[in-house]
């Protein structure tokens, strides 16, 4: 009997070892001699496109089998066309990868045209960065403390349902500042020009855009200043800090809130804000395979993706082009967001944000 147990144990170990080594070999060999097509859902030249065109040559080197990688742009419907394409039509053979900001709120609030279901897709990994909010010097000549006396702010945005607008509207609402919400600004360029002219008081950008362009022409020219930055929240409910942004002397939003209001933020709006920040900012840019793609493909791509964190050559390129190192949050954290927030969204929050969007759409 004992002999039988030992034989069984040895057999199981062999099977497991065989399986594991087979899986490793599969991941090693899966992409050898193959070509991966990365689908970027926006036209060439924009922030997303530039990021992935910078990243992909380095990512390629770290994927076992060193496949060829090409980038194709499939713009349309605010990124929805490419997302739907990879979800519905792309073959699950590991050779088509969606490289894009994920449109989590589009799925949660069932926006028109959003058929993609991220909880059915295969997540490879995510990237995150802070969002910098800057305000005209006419409004805050001496610094962010001036906001105590500000009654109303002319805030630039795209439309009430855009992630950027929701984040900024909520931030200002919590500070008790009246908002004149001026929508219709496609991208930062025209909005920043309006801020320079004095037609707008406030706008927001990714930290990389801020560093690459606006820091010099807005702050450097004395037209405005960065007042806070937004980021997601950790398990303890504290806003995640980014060293590079802190070094520039830009405080976190919760710090600014405490300074202006004299107390820590709390309440229904704050909980909604935190929920929203985690949905939209725990990770933003990301890579996905179509549903039912092979595990070996996902494993190989993920291995390459996360090796980028320690690839100093890539990080140096990132600092040169985007002003900061690229931060890739752990896979488990990103998958957790997909499962908990999008796959199974809190109905109260969904209703809250539908009402919120409706309020500002009037």
């Amino acid at each position: 009997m004992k002999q039988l147990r030992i034989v069984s144990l040895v057999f199981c170990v062999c099977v497991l070892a065989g399986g594991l080594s087979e899986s490793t070999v599969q991941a090693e060999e899966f992409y050898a001699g193959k070509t991966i097509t990365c689908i970027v859902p926006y036209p060439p030249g924009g922030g997303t496109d530039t990021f992935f065109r910078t990243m992909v040559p380095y990512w390629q080197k770290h994927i076992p089998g060193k496949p060829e990688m090409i980038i194709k742009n499939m713009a349309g419907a605010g990124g929805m066309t490419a997302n739907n394409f990879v979800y519905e039509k792309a073959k699950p053979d590991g050779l088509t990868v969606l490289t894009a900001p994920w449109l989590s709120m589009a799925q949660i609030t069932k926006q028109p045209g959003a058929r993609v279901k991220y909880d059915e897709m295969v997540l490879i990994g995510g990237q995150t960065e802070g969002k910098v909010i800057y305000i005209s010097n006419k409004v805050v000549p001496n610094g962010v403390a001036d906001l105590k006396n500000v009654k109303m702010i002319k805030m630039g945005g795209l439309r009430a349902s855009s992630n950027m607008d929701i984040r900024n509207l909520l931030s200002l609402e919590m500070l008790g500042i009246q908002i004149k919400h001026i929508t219709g600004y496609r991208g930062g360029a025209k909005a920043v020009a309006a801020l320079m002219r004095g037609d707008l008081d406030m706008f927001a950008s990714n930290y990389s855009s801020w560093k690459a362009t606006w820091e010099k022409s807005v702050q450097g020219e004395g037209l405005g200043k960065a007042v806070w930055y937004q980021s997601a929240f950790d398990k303890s409910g504290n806003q995640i800090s980014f060293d590079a942004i802190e070094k520039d002397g830009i405080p976190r939003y919760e710090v600014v809130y405490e300074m202006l209001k004299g107390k820590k933020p709390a309440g229904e709006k704050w909980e909604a804000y935190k929920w929203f920040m985690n949905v939209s900012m725990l990770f933003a840019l990301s890579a996905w395979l179509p549903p039912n793609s092979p595990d070996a493909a996902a494993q190989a791509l993920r291995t390459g993706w996360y090796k980028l964190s320690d690839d100093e050559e890539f990080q140096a390129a990132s600092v040169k082009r985007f002003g900061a190192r690229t931060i890739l949050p752990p896979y488990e954290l990103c998958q957790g967001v997909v499962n908990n927030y999008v796959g199974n969204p809190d109905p109260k929050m969904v209703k809250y944000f539908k009402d919120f969007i409706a309020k500002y759409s009037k």
Partner: protein
Amino acid sequence: MEYISAFLEGLTLVFQWPAIGYLFLGVFIGIWLGAIPGVGGFTGLVLLLPFTYTMEPVPAFALLLGMFAVTSTSDTIASVLLGIPGTAASQATILDGNPLARQGKASKAFGAAFTVSAFGGVFGGLLMAASLPIVRPFLLKFGEPEFFMLTVWGLTMVGSLSGRSILKGIVLCCFGVWTATIGYAEHDAVPRYYFGVEYLLNHLPIVACILGLFAIPEMLDITVKERNISDVPKDQSNATMLDGIKEAFRNWWLAIRCAAIGVYVGMMPGLGQSVVDWAAYGHAIQSTKDKGKFGLGDIRGVIAPEAANNAHRGGALMPTITFGIPGDAMMAVVLGALMIQGLRPGPDMLTDHLDITFSLVWTLIIANIIAAVAMMIWSRQLSKLAFINGMMIVPVVLLFIMMGTWLGTQTFGDWIVMLIFGVIGYMMKASGWARPPLVIAFVLGPIMENSFLISNRMVDNFAWMLRPVCLILLVMVILTIVLSVRGVINRRKDIDLDVEVGEGLTHNPIFSFYVSMFMLVVFIAAGIVALTFPTYSAKQFPLITCSLGTVLTLYLCWKDIQLIKSELYSQKTDLAEYSHRCAEKAMFRVSSRFIGMMVLAVALGYFFGMKVVVPALMAAYSHFWGKFSWKVTLVFTVIGFCVIHFFYDKLMHFVLLESAVLRWLGF
């Protein structure tokens, strides 16, 4: 002094190796990309950008800007020879360039176009260099209210571009602005005219609309009339390139004015290259006394847009470099390239990196000169294309129409839009509705709506209208309207009523009535749908355009009916016979077959993919319409397949339409 020494330092940098080599390479690539309809500088920038990652800034920009600067020189080829805009910047060139080619004067058109292109490029570069230190306050004067007034001013140009009927021009403006409202409202979370079709969440792509409006009717015309590009035999054509160069010098003042328009339109972020040629063309008509020949092959109609579109490049670089504000998609790529090189747009480019900034200026200047010389040499051969059998050209052009359209958003909807606008374009051409007002309104519509809504949200009670620049522009709008109305009245006297070859000059009341009815139905239906939009701002523009369009179109329908009645009386015929004559004049039966072939090709494209269907379309055309041998047909088919497979797929990495049948079968 420091400024001048940096200016000269910039020149030295460009002439250093390898920068000068890359500059030549960029120019060579740019000439080819500009010559292929639908491809253009944007694609070129995206294609070349990855190669610059490891290069030094000056060689990198010599390659990128060398290519970018000259696509608006070589795009003239398609505009003149084929009547198809090579890029969005050469739409207006077709109005007089193509009639010149049909008169056997393509060489003259090329001579004038390339001379003023070089001049425009050099002028744009120099004006950019001179304006850099002072451009900032000027740009800051133009906010959303000023942009709105600029677009209104732009729309007043339709008065000069409407052919015989200014009323039809206004109706087309309404139609163009309404068409531009399809898709997500920029300012609201409201998809307009969406009907559950994902494609309609976007604005309609301009390339598909323009190729449909202009290219399909032109190919159809060559096909049904079985003509060459030139209506005049080669031995009777005595116009030379030198004639064109002389004309360019004779019209130097017009070229300077239009180049200045090009620079200043380029400087306005958001207006883009689609507007610049129309602005210059409109100015050329408005500022000349003898307007009668415009649209019929007036060389000034070539000089004006070609001087402007090359000068535009220098203007467009200014806000990108000085503020980091890209004016259009191409400038967004250039901005990306600056960032990749570690250069920060803004004041640094005018202080720490002034030599590099001037190297960009010199790159533009030198590239334009090289391209003009190269094009003059090359176009000696190209001009001969005007005299060969038109049927030989159409299959190749069909390839570029299909692929150029596809590049809009790289979705199947682009082909459908191209077909719809192709039918509209044919009907308009056959019935005396000028197409330029529709294009201008379509291009300006989204800018106009967005600027208007932002202005209203920014300042209450239309107080923004009182801003100084707005008031100046308002005066210019009024002046332009007065001049346009006077010009139309004068032009009526100049125009020979028997001449029907120009835009909006064809006389065909029955077809005109069909177009009016189509517009009426669209306006009424679109107006009713607009009432269901949930927000006031989303429904505002569609309702205004549809209401105005409905009233004016009703009047046009009534006018068409009166005209038909009088024709029936004067020709002593009945309606059936008269309709038959009008259909024959429009070559309706043959045209329907051609359009049917295109519809079939698009439908089959869905099932069998573009790599099969586009070469098959070329084969079908060359065999059944061109009546060429199977060997020639095979050559066309192989060319079609190779261009799609190697150029569009393997080199450019575009997303191509794959076969639905193969997908269903699991391949």
